[in-house]
């Protein structure tokens, strides 16, 4: 038996600032090669999907293979519009953050297909338990941007009354659960919601999102355990955008297998999907939703993508990864790919694209105008500090009534 000294392995990404990332080692199968199994196929027969990569759009922008969801052109154009609107919104908000109009923002650049296609593939009544990088869900569900801006600005119309960090939306009317600052907690909650739906004989299912990094949290394990034990009708998504702030996905356990494979360990089916391929994301989500809705339980979807943006406005990726890594990402850009597909179908052209972009920029600006009319961070200062004592409990308890008085008296005293 070998008695050489043991060594501690510390995973390292392919390249660091100054280096060049070589993505050639990534195993990216051609589009269209995987078959679409029956939604009631037993999970043992689906293990390979955890290691493959469902792709519909090929390099020429054609939709190929079994997984093509065969969406009509209007639907595709709508998807494109939602993605572009999301991107425009992101860009605008980052500018405003730089101007000090808000303290914080998080973009989803490069990952727009994830939230948009998934929202479109789910039913309107399905309940969404997102992380902070799925603003596309709200865009696709038609939540007015001005509501999101009001939250971001903590202004007088902020639906969350100035309580939450910007972008930590909560939109019950759009079936969008309150985003938590603590990573991953929404995952078992989504399973619990789905169990409650099943208990109630409802037809609505739940869907939840975490990042690759967050899979290491306990809540990920709780969710998969409960989902498999009770066959909860839930779609569990892992958005593998390769990075968790400065840590590459190897630090979350992505060096030795896929994140989709985690599900295999629980006897749950997993689909690993090209997250920058709108059609593939749509198709996989529709499959998982149908499976859940027909009482065959949960599916985990790994959305294989790349975080083209910094982690947040507090982050500068130049400190830990090569500056051009995003542009080298072999699966391209989701917006560009859907656009090319529509063009190749003869359903879109550069002219219409430019017109749409202008229209969306206008839309964002006009909603922004409305939002700023209600104020931006601290300008004017939010004007209902007493409200901070509400909603701790349903009724304001006695000691908070007293604290509120104290606080208001102190303010007056100024």
């Amino acid at each position: 038996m070998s008695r050489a000294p043991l060594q501690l392995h510390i995973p390292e990404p392919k390249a660091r600032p100054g280096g060049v990332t070589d993505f050639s080692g990534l195993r990216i199968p051609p589009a269209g090669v995987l078959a679409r199994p029956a939604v009631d196929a037993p999970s043992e027969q689906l293990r390979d999907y955890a290691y493959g990569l469902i792709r519909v759009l090929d390099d020429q922008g054609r939709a190929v293979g079994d997984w093509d969801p065969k969406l009509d052109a209007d639907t595709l154009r709508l998807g494109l519009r939602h993605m572009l609107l999301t991107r425009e919104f992101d860009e605008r908000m980052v500018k405003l953050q730089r101007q000090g109009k808000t303290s914080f923002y998080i973009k989803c650049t490069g990952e727009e297909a994830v939230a948009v296609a998934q929202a479109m593939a789910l039913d309107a009544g399905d309940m969404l338990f997102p992380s902070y990088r799925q603003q596309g869900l709200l865009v696709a569900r038609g939540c007015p941007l001005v509501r999101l801006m009001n939250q971001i600005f903590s202004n007088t119309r902020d639906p969350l009354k100035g309580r939450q960090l910007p972008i930590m939306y909560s939109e019950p009317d759009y079936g969008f659960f309150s985003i938590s600052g603590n990573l991953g907690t929404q995952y078992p909650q989504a399973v619990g919601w789905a169990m409650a739906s099943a208990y109630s004989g409802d037809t609505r299912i739940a869907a939840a999102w975490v990042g690759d990094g967050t899979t290491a949290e306990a809540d990920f394990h709780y969710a998969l355990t409960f989902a498999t034990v009770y066959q909860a009708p839930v779609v569990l998504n892992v958005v593998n955008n390769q990075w968790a702030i400065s840590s590459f996905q190897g630090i979350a356990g992505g060096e030795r297998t896929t994140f989709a494979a985690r599900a295999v360990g629980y006897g749950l089916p997993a689909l690993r999907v090209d997250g920058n391929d709108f059609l593939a994301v749509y198709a996989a989500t529709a499959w998982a939703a149908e499976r859940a809705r027909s009482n065959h339980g949960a599916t985990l979807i790994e959305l294989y993508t790349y975080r083209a943006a910094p982690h947040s406005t507090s982050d500068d990726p130049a400190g830990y990864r090569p500056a051009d890594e995003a542009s080298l990402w072999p699966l391209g850009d989701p917006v560009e790919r859907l656009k090319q597909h529509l063009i190749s179908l003869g359903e879109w052209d550069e002219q219409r694209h430019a017109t749409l972009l202008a229209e969306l920029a206008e839309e964002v600006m006009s909603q922004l105008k409305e939002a700023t009319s209600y104020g931006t961070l601290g300008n004017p200062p939010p004007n209902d500090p007493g409200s901070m004592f509400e909603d701790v409990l349903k009724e304001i308890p006695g000691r908070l009534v007293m604290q509120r008085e104290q606080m208001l008296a102190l303010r007056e005293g100024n």
Partner: protein
Amino acid sequence: MARMNMIQAINSAMDVAMGRDPKVVVFGEDVGYFGGVFRCTAGLQKKYGKQRCFDAPISEGGILGAAVGMGVYGLRPVVEIQFADYIYPAFDQLVSEAARLRYRSAGGFTAPLTVRTPCGGGIFGGQTHSQSPEAIFTHVCGLTTVMPSNPYDAKGLLLAAIEDDDPVIFFEPKRIYNGPFDGHHDRPLTPWSKHELGEVPEEYYTVPLGKAKILRPGEKVTVIAYGTMVHVCLAAAEESGVDAEVIDLRSLLPLDLDTLVESVKKTGRCVVVHEATKTCGYGAELVSLIQEHCFYHLEAPIERVTGWDTPYPHAYEWDYFPGPKRVAQALKKVLED
């Protein structure tokens, strides 16, 4: 009226709640077919079906996470954590989620769940079956924390907790499941069936959260306690002959401060008693509030009688447990001071 011990009263509360509201579901480790290691859920699965009372994986965090989600859907989950010592793995879901959800969503989402969990020592359970972690929850805004001291209150408080629209932690002092243990471990235990508070209506009733109860009126010193310690304090008062007013908090948060302040203003002296470790225990908050509100009425420093600041040692259980002798000593001390 029926005679029930605390286990039966708690069981009856869930039974009544489930009978009244199909949104009430009960789950936790071993609570389904078996009916719980302390038998608190016995018979519920048989009566209401396995979808309404079921076993959960050994995953306290998962249990709470799922319960929050169920609450968001609109159910009223009542979950059991097998021992309060095992609530720590669920701490994040309780503190960051259940307790904060209403606030962070500005009332858009809520988690109307109840966590039942047996707490406290005196059963030779060693350090991981004896803890009283209530103070780490009373520090968290958004949680309601309850601990009954008898079957009547247990049922009424539990029904109130289940109906409450916010998360409630319901601590069950396991040492008094079967009878009002007063700390005299060398004497036979009186069963609840021989105690007036063992008279429990079969039907629905509630005991309001946030109302303390004066169990023994007195003039010379106010004794504040909850759970098992209530009985220890009653015994200490009796045995020491001190004219002590013994108050059972029943609910730690919301706290019935008025009742406490009124009593201390009358007696001018106060002893606070709990089984949990002393430093930063709930007693510290009680002492702080009372010195704040009754400063000019106090004639002696407020005494705390608590578990020592060590884990609960198996073989030295009775040297650890704050028994009637220690409480009596404190009663005399505040009178002498």
